[in-house]
């Protein structure tokens, strides 16, 4: 038996003996009436905003004009109140879905007794040259339902709700032009190829499609200017085709020729979707308040840019050959943080502004009753010293790939280094942002060591002309001594997460990645065993730290484990096995959330999560490098690009 939530929000039991269903259809499990599973969603976007589309053809999350703007659909966080837009067969169906090859254009195939229908969802993309030739809406979602075979009755239910579901939206009829909705300073338009019925705050309709017939919808949003009303029909088909081509051309720019290409490029496409193109910032995730434990209060807003993701993100982008994106992201990192330099905040919004104060939306029930729903982020004021190492390591990777820095950028980097030299021995909240106070985290020390080490590397290679070398060398050595003495627990034969502590966490597997110690050293080998023993969740999944009750296994930590094996901690076969087991937890579209429930394999936490996807890419790159006998990033510290290579990338300037 198969349970699906049909557009009207009712649970139907579908017969399993449906016609035309392939054997490898993804299993849709019995679900709670209130929500789809997190992994049942796919993402579409335009590098400025994103929407989540459920397996049953419902857009349950959409924020315009930016990722962190208030939503117009938020059924993800409250199926009754949040608002949604579903387009699906009115009869029971089974589902198979996929992205069109190498694109972010989502196709959901519905298999019914009476026929088959396919729904195509996208936010269109096109080159700037093309965009200059026609009027284009500021923001646009295109949905096209096509009957492929037989005859299928399609039901449409459009329920916009402004400001995270708090406010009803008045729908006004504008005749042939479509339905218009004024919300605050902007206007939404819904156009369709067949007229919809509508009430005050809802539009709906049922349409019987025969093979070859289709239904088209365009939903747009505009602020600050008259709206552009997009054409339907032939123009829309061309627009979809052009968008597919744009994404495929973007994928073709990648130089990646390593293993697991499909998973790696899907991760790259997800990462690209989470990039805010006007500034170069990359969001941690597209959502807020998807829970780390179902029913708990571990619900956070991830629609901001975390500096801790910097190093791995640059590694992923450069490793795949996306130098323009890497340069754009690093430029954003160094320029957006200008207001707070030399201090760095934990996170910034897309334009480098402070993230809003955390607020709870008490009127939303939360995903599967996981309350509260939060917007803004309270970790904004935390001290996380690891961010300095992440940013400086990102800059060092950029330099190794041939990039350079102008005098202002050099000053900025040295300013970070001076701050680290003065503050590395302070306790901080650390990478995992617990709200239980500050401690002397080993990982933060490691990243402070990395910060000074990379600056000295950049100086030795003339990428930074001037810095206080003696100070940086002395403090780097002091950090090393402290880590080797106080972060090592002789009784446990392991490094530990907090100085003089007794617990491990998964960040300890990063020690060799940053070049502090080799992965095959006896200390790291026994640390790896301790981490696996204490934090292993089966199938090479890893918890990030010990917690009671346990949350899900942390997606990126598993990939750190695989990468540890790749860079010398184990054999190449072991690394491949670990990687393959981890990749088996991606959803049917190749997407990961922040965490994985080790008991059920379900996704947990915000979705899709950039951190997990950059972890996947970095692990795949390490597998490729190991197989080819190439050095991993930390070993490349002494293999800086020559001056000739440096011409390949521009000099970064403020």
């Amino acid at each position, binding site marked *: 038996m198969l349970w699906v939530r049909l557009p009207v929000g009712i649970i139907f039991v579908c017969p399993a003996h449906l016609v035309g269903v392939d054997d490898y259809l993804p299993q849709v499990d019995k679900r709670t009436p209130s929500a789809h599973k997190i992994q049942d969603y796919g993402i579409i976007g335009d590098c400025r905003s994103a929407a989540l589309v459920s397996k049953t053809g419902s857009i349950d999350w959409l924020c315009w004009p930016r990722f962190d703007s208030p939503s117009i659909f938020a059924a993800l966080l409250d199926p009754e109140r949040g608002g949604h837009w579903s387009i699906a067969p009115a009869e029971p169906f089974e589902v198979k879905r996929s992205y069109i090859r190498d694109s972010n254009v989502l196709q959901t195939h519905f298999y019914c007794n009476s026929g088959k229908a396919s729904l195509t969802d996208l936010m269109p993309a096109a080159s700037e040259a093309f*965009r*200059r*030739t*026609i*009027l*284009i*809406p500021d923001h646009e979602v295109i949905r096209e339902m096509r009957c492929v075979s037989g005859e299928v009755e399609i039901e449409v239910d459009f329920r916009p709700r402004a400001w995270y579901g708090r406010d009803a939206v008045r729908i006004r009829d*504008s*005749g*042939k*032009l*479509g339905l*218009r909705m*004024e919300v*605050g*300073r*902007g*206007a939404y*338009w819904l*156009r*369709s*190829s067949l007229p919809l019925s509508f009430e005050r705050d809802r539009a709906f309709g049922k349409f019987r499609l025969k093979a070859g017939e289709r239904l*088209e919808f365009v939903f747009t949003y*505009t*602020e*600050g*200017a*008259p*709206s*552009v*009303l*997009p*054409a*339907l*029909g*032939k*123009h829309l088909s061309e627009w979809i085709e052009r968008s597919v081509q744009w994404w495929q051309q973007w994928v073709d720019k990648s130089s990646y020729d390593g293993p697991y290409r499909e998973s790696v490029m899907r991760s790259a496409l997800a990462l690209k979707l989470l990039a805010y193109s006007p500034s170069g910032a990359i969001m941690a995730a597209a959502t807020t308040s998807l829970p780390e434990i179902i029913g708990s209060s571990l619900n956070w807003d991830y629609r901001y840019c975390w500096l801790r993701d910097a190093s791995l993100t640059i590694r992923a982008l450069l490793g795949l050959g996306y130098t323009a994106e890497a340069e754009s992201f690093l430029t954003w990192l160094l320029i957006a943080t200008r207001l707070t330099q030399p201090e760095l905040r934990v996170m910034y919004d897309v334009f480098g502004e402070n993230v809003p104060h955390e607020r709870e939306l008490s009127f939303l029930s939360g995903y599967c009753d996981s309350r509260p729903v939060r917007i803004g982020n309270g970790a904004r004021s935390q001290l996380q010293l690891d961010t300095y190492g992440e940013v400086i390591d990102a800059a060092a990777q950029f330099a190794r790939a041939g990039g350079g820095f102008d005098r202002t950028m050099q000053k900025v980097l040295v300013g970070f280094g001076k701050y680290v030299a003065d503050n590395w021995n302070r306790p901080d909240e650390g990478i995992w942002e617990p709200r239980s106070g500050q401690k002397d985290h080993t990982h933060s020390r490691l990243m402070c060591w990395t910060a000074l080490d990379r600056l000295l590397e950049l100086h030795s290679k003339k990428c930074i002309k001037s810095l206080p070398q003696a100070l940086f060398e002395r403090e780097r050595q002091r950090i090393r001594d402290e880590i080797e003495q106080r972060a090592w627990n002789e009784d446990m034969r392991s490094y530990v997460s907090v100085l003089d502590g007794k617990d491990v966490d998964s960040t300890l597997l990063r020690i060799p990645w940053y070049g502090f110690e080799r992965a095959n050293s006896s200390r790291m080998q026994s640390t790896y065993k301790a981490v696996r023993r204490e934090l292993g969740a089966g199938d090479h999944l890893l918890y990030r730290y010990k917690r009671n009750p346990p949350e899900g296994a942390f997606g990126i930590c598993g990939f750190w484990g695989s990468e540890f094996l790749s860079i010398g901690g184990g054999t190449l076969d072991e690394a491949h096995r670990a990687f393959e087991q981890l990749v088996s937890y991606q959803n049917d579209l190749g997407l990961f959330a922040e965490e994985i429930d080790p008991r059920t394999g379900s996704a947990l936490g915000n979705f899709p999560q950039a951190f997990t996807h950059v972890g996947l890419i970095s692990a795949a790159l390490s597998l490729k490098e190991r197989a080819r006998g190439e050095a991993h990033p930390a070993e490349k510290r002494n293999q800086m690009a020559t001056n000739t290579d440096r011409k390949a990338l521009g000099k970064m300037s403020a």
Partner: protein
Amino acid sequence: MNWSSWLLWGFLATLVLTTISEVTQGLGLTRMNMPYLLGTMITPDRDRAKLYGFFIHVFWGWGFSLVYVLIFEALHETGWWRGVIIGLVQAVFLLVAVVNLLPGLHPRMASEQHGPESANLLEPPGFLALNYGARTPFAIFLSHAVFGAILGIFYHLK
């Protein structure tokens, strides 16, 4: 007719009107964007349309200030409230007459008769330009009243 006074204050009044228009859009009072509407008559390129439209709007406003000046000359009187009245009359004319003619004038604007299969087009302004926001008439009245007031205060009859 004081040509130099018209040239100076007509130009400055137009700049103030343009600034007020931008501020009202920025504050979310209206989506009425005259430079964008004028510019898209020439090009679909959004950025260039705004640029071209800005210059067209400035020259248009500058030229239209001549009508205000001619009225002052005909009355042999100036004064801020006379300017405000002329500005409000112009705003009414704009909102009632010009705006309704726009779909016929503008090569890239839809009308209520356009179906969904035509090319991408701008939404029509509708009666009193209310399609561009319920507070659009207020924004138009405000900007034109200030435009008229500046001319009424600073234009000197010869």
